């Protein structure tokens, strides 16, 4: 940005950042603040305030029914050393994250590759794969409660053709997690669309040149497509992890953490502490939220830090 005004060689440090500005620039700055004021006010009321309040609450035993007392690091110590459900929910969440992200990235990539082969009716196929992703999540859970129904569900009927005996899915601790993972594959369309956009951005010359050099389809996939797609893949993996870490709605509606805690996820446990239990344990829930925040913050930093190493910006 080039500025026409002559800058003084030595800027005096002043408390009023407006003082050095010319009247025109001052007017511009005032309008700038006026336009962003809704967000600035909202930032303080709905984000920064609650953010700080949450940190303070996490060091108390506050519940909405009684005023809290300062308990120091007790909530954090309790989570890490004296709460089996914390570890169970963390483990379940990690299993879900690894499973669902793997399914979505691999299936999404394969589908995008299939759709990127100059087939006809591309828009139709893309739409069909994408439509499940726009179905509201509560509607999806209702539909999948039917699909996964042990007595008359569609999945058992379908698997029957391959000789698989009827499974109990969400009603058994052995298969409940698997059921939610199968369900998560229904949302692969979003990932597929992002991959497809990336694939279509790869210049055809690269493939043509490799063909002339005698590279077969498999070699071209491994040597050209996948290396060029690494930034997109990496990005989808991290965003997928961050989203999957907050899995909540389907578990609350479909299993409520059961059977036998098999699907008790981190957000579900946090929600139960804050709003489900009597009396509510809002202090403890806030500590759980901050542990989650640190995990997600670190993952986000990985994205920002590594993006310049991964992102391929063309020539």
């Amino acid at each position, binding site marked *: 940005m080039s500025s026409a005004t002559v800058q003084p060689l030595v800027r005096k440090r002043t408390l009023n950042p407006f003082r050095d500005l010319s009247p025109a620039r001052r007017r511009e700055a005032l309008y700038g603040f006026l336009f962003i004021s809704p967000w600035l006010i909202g930032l303080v009321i709905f984000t920064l305030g609650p953010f700080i309040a949450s940190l303070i609450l996490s060091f108390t035993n506050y519940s909405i029914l009684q005023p809290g007392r300062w308990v120091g690091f007790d909530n954090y110590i309790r989570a890490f050393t004296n709460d089996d459900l914390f570890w169970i929910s963390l483990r379940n969440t990690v299993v879900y994250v690894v499973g669902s992200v793997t399914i979505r990235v691999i299936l999404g990539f394969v589908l995008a590759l299939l759709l990127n082969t100059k087939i006809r009716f591309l828009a139709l196929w893309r739409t069909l794969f994408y439509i499940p992703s726009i179905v509201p999540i509560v509607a999806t859970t209702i539909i999948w409660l039917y699909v996964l129904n042990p007595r008359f569900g569609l999945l058992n009927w379908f698997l029957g053709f391959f000789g698989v005996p009827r499974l109990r899915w969400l009603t058994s601790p052995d298969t409940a997690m698997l059921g939610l993972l199968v369900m998560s594959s229904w949302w692969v369309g979003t990932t597929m669309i992002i991959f497809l956009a990336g694939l279509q951005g790869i210049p055809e010359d690269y493939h043509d040149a490799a063909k002339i050099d005698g590279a077969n389809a498999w070699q071209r996939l491994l040597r050209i497509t996948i290396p060029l797609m690494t930034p997109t893949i990496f990005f989808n993996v991290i965003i997928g992890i961050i989203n999957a870490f907050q899995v909540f709605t389907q578990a609350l509606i479909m299993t409520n953490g059961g059977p036998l805690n098999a699907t008790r996820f981190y957000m579900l446990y946090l929600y139960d502490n804050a709003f489900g239990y009597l009396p509510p344990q809002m202090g403890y829930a806030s500590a759980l939220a901050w542990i989650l*925040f640190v995990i997600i913050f670190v993952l986000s930093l990985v994205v920002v830090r590594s993006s310049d190493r991964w992102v391929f910006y063309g020539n």
Partner: protein
Amino acid sequence: MSAVSHSRLDLSYNDTWLRLRNKLGKALIYLTIISLSLIFVVPLLSMFSMSLMPREQVGAWPPEWIPNPVQFENYAKALYFWNFAQSFRNTVLVTGLSMIGDLLSCTLVAYGFARFRFPGRNALFMVLLGTLMLPFAVTMVPLYIGYNAIGWVNTFNPLIVPHFFGNAFYIFLLRQFFMTIPEELTDAAKIDGAGEFQIWARIMIPLARPAIIVVAILSFQTHWNDFLGPLLYLKDQQLHTLAIGLYKFQGLPGQGSLYNEMMAATVLMVLPVLVVFAIFQKQFVQGVTLSGLKG
């Protein structure tokens, strides 16, 4: 046979083999795509067909696909007996007002970040991007305590009012778009004596229409689908949105035999999204690729 014709024969053999292999490969790709897309769409189709089935057909083994007889009264029951008409109206109200809030505040703020120089602008914009990393879980509990203190629990306010104060991701998208609008256009308007708000309303908003539609769709989807917000704040049945209504209906004892009516209610929630999708398909896909780039 001479050597020359032999090699020519060899070549043509190779050629047809290659062509056959290509054809086979293509057929295999089509077969995979068709069968996979069927698997993807079947649950959705069975939602529609089940919503029209009589009770005896629900839960048949093997599954039945065609409603016989077609029973439209499932919808009447869902709407009036189970009161989903009220939930539908509530969802429309909350979604509509929240969208107005999102669009109004985000275009204002994005214009402020895109076109005005003011001290601390870049730092504030980094803060804005930083808030994208904040999981809702962190602010959820204090927000609830705050809303409870001012008597907003069990009203629509906590679901609507915050959206009049901007959304970081939409502001980011709109600002990127506003920056591409040539400054000559706004300068010309200024010379003609237009005020800053007039420029925002008369020039920036009409020119940013493509970006605004994408944001409107993202906002519509978010509010129409929202579950956690209504779950926290809407206690009375009169206030339930479709998401909460379906959740409560699903939890009723004996709902297993009411699958057809439950599916009718589910269609009520899904259909508006599908209609919007049918109209704005291109923008939906843009929204996905843009949100895929966020972070």
